[in-house]
């Protein structure tokens, strides 16, 4: 990596650490997420440190400007794009999600004031779909994060792009889980691709333990302000033919699925879907084609996860699912070195 990029990554690390300490609950995000966000930003800052020492040869790219369509409710993505822009020295514009523009614009302003050498690389605002469609044509390259609906927009643009589609993560426990699993499941109401949707288990006692820790979960990790209780109830009750409600609190649930494959209906938010398995192959069969959407796996025994390794970008312990490793660039196989190549 070029020396100037290393220096800027160092500076970004300092900026992010300082900004993280300044996160105010209720100002930048929902109350409970303040602490989480702080932890995430410090973790990301730490990742920048590792990254600068581990990265290989950064190739030249023919692009001078980058447009990034950020996903809603997943702040990690914004902070993970920053080092990419710095290392490639590419001027980057972020299209912010509607509800979260405050956090991101504050950080960019902060960079401009305290670290103008980095700050000048970044800009961003909230834009409507129509405005986005118009403006992206002025950019050399496009990163798009979000739902499959985005593909329509991308198919209309002549700009080269890299699309990071929706994904999901899951857990496998062979013996035990700990209460940190609540973070994997409930932070951001399962809206991130690193949120745990399913927990596959082999031992019966896990279910009782989960019921215990989920009982108080609404107090410990309450829903975000955009949580839709009616949608949660509707989708949970639509799952009834496929299994059993193990626990239903006001705003979270545990549901055990009996069917051998995933039902083809939208899954409820803040709901951990349990599935008993005998072996790894049961998971592969259950996920079917969705297996290509897998992002990460949390487990108590990584040694027993063998066949699923080829699908997951990383494997981690319970409670760490949303704290990505330094070399995670949104999708398995994507590295800092190849991120501009589709």
């Amino acid at each position: 990596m070029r020396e100037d990029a290393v220096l800027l990554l160092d500076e970004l690390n300092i900026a992010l650490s300082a900004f993280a300490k300044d996160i105010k609950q209720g100002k930048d995000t929902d109350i409970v997420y303040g602490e989480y966000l702080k932890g995430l930003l410090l973790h990301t800052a730490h990742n920048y440190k590792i990254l600068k020492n581990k990265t290989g040869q950064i190739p030249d790219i023919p692009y001078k400007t980058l447009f990034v369509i950020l996903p809603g409710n997943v702040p990690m993505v914004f902070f993970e794009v920053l080092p990419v822009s710095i290392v490639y020295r590419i001027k980057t514009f972020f299209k912010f999600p509607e509800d979260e523009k405050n956090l991101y614009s504050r950080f960019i302003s902060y960079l401009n004031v305290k670290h103008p050498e980095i700050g000048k690389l970044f800009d961003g605002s909230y834009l409507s779909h129509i405005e986005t469609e118009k403006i992206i044509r002025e950019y050399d390259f496009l990163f798009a994060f979000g739902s499959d609906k985005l593909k329509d927009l991308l198919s209309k643009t002549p700009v080269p792009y890299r699309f990071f589609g929706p994904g999901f993560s899951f857990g496998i426990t062979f013996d035990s889980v700990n209460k940190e699993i609540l973070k994997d499941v409930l932070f951001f109401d399962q809206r991130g691709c690193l949120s745990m949707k399913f927990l596959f288990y082999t031992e019966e006692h896990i279910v009782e333990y989960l019921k215990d820790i989920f009982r108080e979960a609404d107090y410990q990790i309450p829903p975000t302000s955009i949580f839709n209780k009616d949608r949660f109830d509707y989708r949970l009750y639509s799952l009834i033919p496929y299994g059993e409600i193990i626990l239903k609190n006001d705003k979270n649930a545990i549901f055990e699925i009996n069917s051998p494959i995933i039902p083809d209906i939208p899954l409820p938010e803040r709901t951990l879907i349990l599935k008993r398995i005998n072996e790894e192959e049961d998971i592969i069969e259950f996920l079917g084609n969705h297996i290509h959407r897998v992002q990460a796996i949390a487990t108590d025994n990584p040694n027993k996860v063998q066949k699923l390794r080829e699908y997951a970008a990383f494997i981690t312990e319970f409670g760490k699912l949303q704290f990505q490793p330094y070399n995670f660039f949104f999708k398995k196989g994507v590295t800092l070195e190849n991120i501009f190549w589709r």
Partner: protein
Amino acid sequence: MDLLNEVKDYIKNYNEFDESLALKIIEFQSENIPFYGDFLKKTTGKTRFNRLKEVPPFPTDYFKSEKLFAFKTSEGFFESSGTTGERSRVYYNKTSLGLYRTSALTSYPLKNKPLKTFIDIEKYGISSLAYMVKLFTDKFGGGKINDIDELKDGDVLFLTAIQLHRIINEIKEPIILEIDIIETGGYKKLKKDYSRFMLYKEAKKIFKKAHFYTEYGMTELFSQFYADETNPFKDHHYAKVFLNGTGYLKVFDFANLFQVSYLVVPDILRQVNGGFEYIKRDVEDERGCSFTFG
């Protein structure tokens, strides 16, 4: 059939929501619609209840996959238009259609005026909207028209929001007829986000002397709701809407005696003085980068 007569009498002659009759209906439906009985058992552990608030409303999506009918055999089914995904099927027979007619005629606000329509009422066997409009034309006169020139002072024009939108964009000259216009079917297929008031406003430019209504109904409900230029949608004692602020439509429809009465529909409504307004169908699936399945 005692329950049927009780419900018919209740729709026609009462004016307050009767919770004990509602609970009796739930018990009847759980005994006669096995899927619904299982749903109640799996969600609550029982099929008999002392209060309606103990009962979870039943998601209407189940009409897309299950035959939910209290009789062993049916004589046909209404199918939804499928504008928001898969189609719902609601099975019927002569007895259940009798309740449909009782409810539809009770809530219809423009009785005794001839009803002209662009809706294809020949589809009355498969479309609940066509069935309802045909019921009104049979009862109050009128029928299907092919041209706006066929309207006269005093008529009711019943049409979909899309048809109304098309007409007001095609016709250049104002129409000075004293008519009532009822639009229905929602604005999803129109190019921009519409509220009923926006559509009224645009339509007023052409239909200068018309009074506008909106009908809010769906295949899964045998009862309908009406709003007009000055009044929001109002529920009925026999189709009671449970809403606190803004949220999904939760309704107990007594006319659904032979299907399922206590339903939740993913339509977002807002409570307003004296009634409610329809906001939109909740189709928000993916926000963030999470894959939501389905």
